[in-house]
């Protein structure tokens, strides 16, 4: 008959005979018994001894069982302390009062030991179940708190990697919730040495830690390569290769990349798997920046296509990218925000109010802030201020004297971009570092001038209007892909001593040449969209001249340290 579990059970009963009888029954069943003669005593004993189960007479002097039951239940809190009412009451109403006061069961006099034991056992089971649930609830709450703490820490680390200041540019506006990283959203922006700006919006499949972890190498590669001056196609190829290598098969990252050249007023855009972005002209007309590629991390490097679409830009143009959280978001009634609603907002709003209008439309649709969508807008105007490069070591004047020559032939021109490498070489010369941006821009202009107008014999007059503009870049792509002969020669000469020094860049190509003398003499101002290049080179460098043997010669000079 004895049970293997022993509980502490409180018996509250005003009749000494019944109290004795019950105590005997209960203690014979292997439980420890506490006794109280009225409700007040019962409450005091409960507080002191914390019994696990209570047998409570309903009608007692001083404080009745109903009130005592309420007090005990209140003290027990979340813990289940079963109360069995001992009652001779038989009217339904009285039994209901027992339950309402917090009673879990009742047993009628005279007491049947077997029924009492079964009830104690059943309620003990319930007790254990409740205890388990509470334990699990607390465990889940603790784990959840832990997870949130970890996410906060991870986010702080990620922010150091990802937000290397790129988003704090005046002509960039964005909105991204703090939870976005763990929803797989990623927004990166950086200025390249030549002054163009890269903006990348990414959306990893899946949520939580895996998405956030994938974002780290993506951000690092993006910032590393943009800082070194790599071209968008090369950056995308590297990002794709890296993600393909590290992500499991079923994971990938939808990405839109904007490569905005503020000087030459050119946009290159690549979209793999994100919803349409938009190029919005000052007059309100729109061009959809459509997804034309598979997301990053799907294709093997050999099959990857990093080809960007090219559009001319003008002052007042706006670029808008959105994550699929915008179009795919649902409100409380499970309605989709949908592309149609977005298009209506685009249709109705003046370009400069667009960003606010989209936010308002989303807020009105959902009735609350959304935490899983990203939105970014870039306004085209003056080139954003350049971040000043930090100089790690003070400049020690030293004698410098070297010449390097590169001849880039067809295979190299077709497949490689030599500029990042050349810039790295030049930046070994400390006095040149503060002008890294200008030097890179000049190199990029000279190189693309030699390649496009020299080797590929493209006429920039084609770029007069938007159609011609697209045609120009298509021609460039075709001719470059078919290139079998031709070369560009670059000659770099650095000479310097304590008093100062000079970098001399010479560039020549295998093309038929163009009328440089006329261009330089007439302060050449071609009509249309092309031809800003040489003027820019002249502005950024200390001298630009033409030499029959060396082609174009550009100089950057520096003086002794002030």
């Amino acid at each position: 008959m004895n049970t293997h579990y022993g509980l502490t059970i409180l018996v509250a009963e005003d009749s000494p005979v019944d109290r004795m009888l019950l105590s005997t029954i209960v203690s014979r069943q292997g439980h420890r018994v506490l006794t109280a003669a009225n409700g007040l005593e019962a409450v005091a004993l409960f507080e002191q001894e914390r019994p696990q189960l209570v047998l409570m007479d309903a009608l007692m002097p001083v404080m009745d069982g109903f009130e005592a039951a309420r007090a005990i239940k209140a003290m027990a809190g979340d813990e289940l302390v079963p109360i069995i009412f001992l009652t001779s009451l038989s009217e339904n109403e009285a039994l209901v009062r027992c339950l309402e006061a917090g009673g879990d069961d009742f047993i009628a006099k005279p007491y049947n030991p077997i029924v009492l034991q079964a009830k104690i056992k059943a309620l003990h089971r319930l007790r254990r179940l409740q205890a388990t649930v509470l334990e699990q609830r607390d465990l889940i709450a603790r784990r959840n708190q832990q997870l949130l703490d970890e996410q906060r820490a991870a986010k702080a680390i990620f922010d150091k990697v990802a937000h290397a200041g790129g988003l704090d540019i005046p002509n960039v506006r964005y909105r991204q919730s703090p939870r976005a990283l763990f929803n797989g959203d990623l927004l990166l922006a950086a200025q390249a040495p030549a002054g163009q700006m890269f903006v990348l919006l990414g959306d990893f499949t899946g949520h939580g830690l895996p998405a956030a972890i994938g974002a780290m190498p993506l951000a690092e590669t993006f910032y590393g390569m943009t800082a070194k001056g790599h071209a968008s196609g090369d950056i995308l190829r590297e990002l794709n290769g890296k993600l393909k290598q590290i992500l499991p098969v079923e994971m990938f990252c939808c990405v839109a990349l904007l490569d905005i050249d503020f000087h030459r007023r050119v946009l290159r855009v690549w979209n793999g798997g994100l919803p349409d972005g938009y190029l919005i002209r000052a007059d309100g007309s729109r061009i959809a920046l459509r997804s034309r590629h598979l997301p990053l991390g799907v294709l093997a490097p050999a099959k990857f296509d990093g080809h960007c679409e090219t559009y001319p830009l003008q002052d007042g143009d706006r670029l808008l990218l959105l994550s699929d959280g915008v179009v795919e978001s649902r409100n409380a009634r499970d309605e989709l925000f949908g592309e149609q609603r977005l298009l209506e907002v685009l249709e109705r709003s003046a370009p400069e109010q667009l960003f606010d209008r989209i936010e308002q439309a989303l807020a009105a649709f959902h009735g609350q802030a959304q935490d899983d969508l990203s939105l970014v807008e870039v306004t085209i105007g003056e080139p954003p201020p350049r971040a000043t490069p930090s100089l790690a070591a003070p400049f020690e004047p030293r004698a410098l004297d070297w010449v390097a020559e590169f001849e880039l032939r067809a295979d190299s021109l077709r497949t490689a971009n030599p500029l990042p490498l050349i810039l790295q070489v030049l930046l070994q010369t400390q006095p040149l570092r503060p002008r890294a941006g200008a030097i890179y821009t000049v190199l990029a202009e000279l190189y693309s001038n030699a390649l496009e107008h020299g080797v590929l014999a493209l006429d920039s007059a084609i770029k007069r209007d938007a159609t011609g503009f697209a045609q120009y870049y298509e021609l460039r792509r075709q001719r470059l892909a078919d290139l079998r002969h031709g070369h560009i020669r670059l000659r770099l000469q650095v000479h310097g001593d304590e008093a100062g020094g000079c970098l001399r860049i010479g560039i020549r190509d295998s093309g038929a040449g163009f009328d440089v003398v006329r261009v330089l003499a007439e302060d050449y101002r071609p009509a249309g969209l092309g031809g800003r290049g040489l003027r820019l080179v002249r502005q950024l460098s200390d001298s630009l001249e033409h030499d029959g043997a060396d082609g174009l010669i550009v100089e950057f000079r520096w003086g002794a340290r002030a």
Partner: protein
Amino acid sequence: MTITSQPSADGRELTIIISGRFDFNAHQAFREAYLRPDVSPQRYVLDLQGANYLDSSALGMLLLLRDHAGGDEADIRLLNCNPDVRRILQVSNFEKLFVIA
């Protein structure tokens, strides 16, 4: 969401029929459907007639199937896509990996 699969008489083709929401909840059922131990098909057909929704983890599952079926050599056709499903496949340019009809 229900997923069933039906091999052809010669066992060379496996048709997987998906209806309802094709999303992360379907992961296990979808795996079981294409990893049937009783057949080793050379071609797969996904019948999406009854599928009204597809999320990015469903796209991930399609990539898993493609990987299982031989990667670039995989022969997988997606049939009866409704306009919503087709749009999602289009945005991700999955027609470069699968035959979508």
